[in-house]
């Protein structure tokens, strides 16, 4: 049963995954080119100090990609289920609807992780080519809230798509956007060092939010 669901999910999300992997690669290559160009034009030491002292984030082009990837994956996974009430069919499958939803979410999360691994490895490779290890490490620490926003975006979008009424969808969207906003507050590097885990806990809460709209869907609540 799970294998069949996995196959079904894969059909829905493969092109989104490929698309975002391509976008990430392109952006990472651009970051590399941009770094090379800056170092060539203004000198390595100035470029380094601009990053260290003025806190210019040379990888800021990546900022919203995880969030968009998360939302796109959720849409790809759950919108086809919601059109023509297809998802209601799966309530007749010999599997608990809660388990199924959580399994689908798990697949989506792992797919998101693939994008994140690409981002992290890419930052390590492009970073080490031009910058000392301290700067590379700070880039990895600085992108973690953005990756967390990707996970939150995926979970929130799944919940919003599964929700059956537009009124609730709007409420949940406002709340989700208000939360995403909190993960993009940085003006420099390493700024979430002491508070990251609090924001992480809130994202853990997001991980089971899909069940309630799922339940409403099964009940046919308005």
């Amino acid at each position, binding site marked *: 049963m799970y294998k069949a669901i996995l196959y079904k999910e894969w059909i829905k999300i493969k092109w989104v995954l490929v698309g975002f992997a391509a976008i990430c690669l392109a952006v990472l290559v651009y970051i590399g080119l941009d770094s090379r160009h800056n170092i060539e034009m203004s*000198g*390595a*030491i*100035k*470029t*380094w*100090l601009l*990053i*260290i*002292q003025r806190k210019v984030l040379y990888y800021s082009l990546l900022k919203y990609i995880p969030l968009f990837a998360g939302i796109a994956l959720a849409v790809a996974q759950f919108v086809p289920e919601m059109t023509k009430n297809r998802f209601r069919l799966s309530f007749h499958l010999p599997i608990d609807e*809660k388990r199924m939803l959580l399994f689908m979410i798990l697949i989506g999360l792992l797919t998101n992780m693939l994008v994140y691994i690409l981002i992290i490895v890419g930052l390590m490779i492009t970073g080490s*080519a*031009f*910058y*000392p290890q*301290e*700067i590379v490490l*700070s880039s990895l620490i600085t992108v973690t*809230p953005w990756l967390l926003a990707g996970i939150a975006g995926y979970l929130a979008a799944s*919940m919003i798509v599964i929700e059956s009424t537009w009124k609730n969808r709007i*409420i*949940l969207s406002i*709340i989700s956007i*208000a*939360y995403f906003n*909190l993960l993009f*507050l*940085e*003006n*420099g*590097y*390493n*700024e*979430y*060092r*002491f*508070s990251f885990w*609090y*924001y992480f806990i*809130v994202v853990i*809460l*997001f991980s*089971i*939010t*899909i*069940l*309630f709209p*799922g*339940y*409403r869907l099964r*009940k046919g*609540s308005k």
Partner: protein
Amino acid sequence: MLNKISRYAIILIIVTISAVHLPNFYWKLFGKRISRPIIYYSPVIDDFVYFKLGKNNKLNYIDASGKRYNRKKFEALLPFDFYRDLDKWGVLPDTIKGIPIDVSFIRKNSQSFRISPYKLHNPLIQLFPLFESKSNFTNLELPNELFRIGTKIEFITAETNTINDSLTKIFTEKLTETGFSFPATFIDGNPTTRKPFDEGYFIVDSKGFVFHVKRVKGKPFCVKTNIPADLGIRKIFISENPRREFYGTILTQSEELYLLTYDNYKIIKLPLDGYNPDKMSLVFLANPIYRVIRYSGSESRVCVVTDKNYNLVDTYEIKVTPLSKTITGKIEKFIFPFTINTRSGRSKYVNFDVNFSGFQSTYGIIISLLICFFVKKYRRENLMHNFFDFIIIAVSGMYGLLAVLLVKPELWD
């Protein structure tokens, strides 16, 4: 059961987000500017003077005895602070307390710096440029490498992103020779080219001793200072100034502030009663006669005056009504049982600080509980089925009320 938990997860998320954003909206809507007086010390009348925003939104100029001045008269009391204006009007006195003064004399004998709380809460990559401090040219130039201190002092050449072995070797040897025990506890300097000259870095080693490290004609300069290792140094602020009286200041864990002087690294404790570096910003002003130090938090503004040898002359304090004690602040505590702060001017970090409002919020909570009760009655919900809703409101007040009413419960299986 899991479906119920899922609903509460959504509710908790709403509570958290409301606690961040709603108080913010509240202050954006009702926040008022409060008057924060700025205190000076007048060498003309030997007393404190200050100006503050009056009721009519105009600045009032007052001295410590309560006498009022107009702006021009006020500035005339403070020739060291407003000498440019006084000079423009042609009323700069020739002597003050017997000392002949003019614009260039005042300028040469003045110095100021500021210590703000965010400087203590600021993420910083630990890589520093070591400037050539005895260059043949006037302007400071960026070196080709940055240094880090681990088990040795390592120089990384930026152009090639590789370790410069020869610099690493001579500096590590020099530091070891001087008695430096690796690694460093912290490194403080003023790594900018926008300063008149360079004094390098003050580096605290693993045993707590302070070392002064510079690059002089490409060679290492390293001195083990006699600053006590048990001083409990928290941070050293370096600011080079042509007066060459002190390198900067040393802040200790016990919130004492010392000047680090050119006199063989002798340290002088500044008489700052009640100074809290995490919450207050401090301004130091040296003029030809006095040293004036102002520090201010949300509840008070203090001005300390010392003579040139840092003996206390006088202090003056003005109490300020903090935002939390204004009517708007009190109503905030009534409405919101707690708030979550993410950003503050006192830190460069993004926080997640939960501040509880205390007992005042009980009223708000009771009102929220009653509203919830009546709405549920009106919606004909069974009160006992979702009793946990009330517990959430009892803890989170109106945030909980908002969340519980927005996310209506279902008829559970």
